[in-house]
């Protein structure tokens, strides 16, 4: 039953998006269910946008920006780190596993790293989805899903 998970990847134009492009040129394979949204900078990401992605049906959300110290806009990626951390907490509050959202730092030249990251993240989300469907099959007590059925929550990021 394992459908391909829907993954949104918010990528900054100057680094991660360029790396994704490069991965393509280098014919580095990564799962097709990773849908890239190009932003001028990960500093554009706000918490509402991240939660909205999940509300709209995303199984996982990646935020991919420049390496620390290399942001084209100097500190945009650092702001993104904080916002992703907060969004993870808000997700956990609602019972959504915060591991479904994560921040990555990928330089423009790192095509293979982008492909690898996208692949590993997809596997992570597939794993989380599988756990839920396994627990749902075993669960005879009722429809209510609680966070106990998911992997243990990350404490603080």
């Amino acid at each position, binding site marked *: 039953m394992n459908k391909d998970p829907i993954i949104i990847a918010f990528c900054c134009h100057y680094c991660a998006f360029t790396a994704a492009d490069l991965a393509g040129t280098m014919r580095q394979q990564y799962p097709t269910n990773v849908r890239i949204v190009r932003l001028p900078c990960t500093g554009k990401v706000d918490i509402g946008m991240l939660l909205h992605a999940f*509300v709209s049906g995303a199984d996982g959300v990646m935020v991919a920006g420049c390496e620390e110290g290399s942001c084209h806009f100097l500190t945009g990626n650092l702001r993104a780190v904080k916002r992703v951390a907060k969004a993870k907490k808000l997700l956990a509050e609602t019972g959504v596993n915060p591991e479904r959202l994560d921040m990555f730092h990928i330089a423009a030249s790192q095509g293979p790293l982008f492909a690898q990251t996208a692949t590993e993240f997809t596997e992570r989300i597939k794993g989380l989805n599988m756990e839920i469907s396994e627990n749902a099959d075993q669960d005879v007590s009722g429809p209510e899903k609680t966070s106990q059925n998911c992997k243990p929550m990350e404490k603080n990021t």
Partner: protein
Amino acid sequence: MIVAERKPFEEIYNNVRKHKSILVLGCGSCVTVCMAGGEEEVGILSSQVELGAREKGDDISVIGHTIKRQCDVEFFDDETAKKIEQVDAVVSMACGVGVQFCVERFPDAIVYPALNTSFYGATMEQGVWAERCAGCGECVIEEFGGICPITRCSKSLLNGPCGGSDSGKCEVDPENLDCAWQLIIDRMDKLGRLEELEQVRPPKNWSKNRDGGPRTITREDKRL
């Protein structure tokens, strides 16, 4: 402005899940400035409710709407009133004033507060708000060179400092709290008014504060 913080999601959701449809109502003034209950926060809370409902298998529909202020009747316009009437419950993201005002204007509505309202304060830097006024009803800031001892001294001393002032910090929180009396003394010294502090200030009239009962101010010349 009034500074507040959003309540933990669980607390809000435990009320919300009793209903089938809710309106998350934001406020465009103070709580927007302190980033607790404005349009952006309405979007975030609405998303959280939808995700939470999905996780718990609850059936809740959510609409979000923000008005300029929830403490003046003119902003509860027809569009807003219609939304309030069409849902089962309202989650107001205004400060405690707005929540109550909404209840008073719409007595048939169920209105939950989404925020814990704390103090009157100012923006120190983006993301940091600090308390500056206690609303004591009898402002004596001038006597202290522009610094309010009622608000900024942990013990509201009018004849401070106490023995807990250390290196300009207050013993209650030596890392983050300045000793108000150190600030006052430095300021009065700078203004050349240090001698004024040698007078024993008499006890405060707390009856002008909330201690005297909930307050109302009326301007007869402004009443229609």
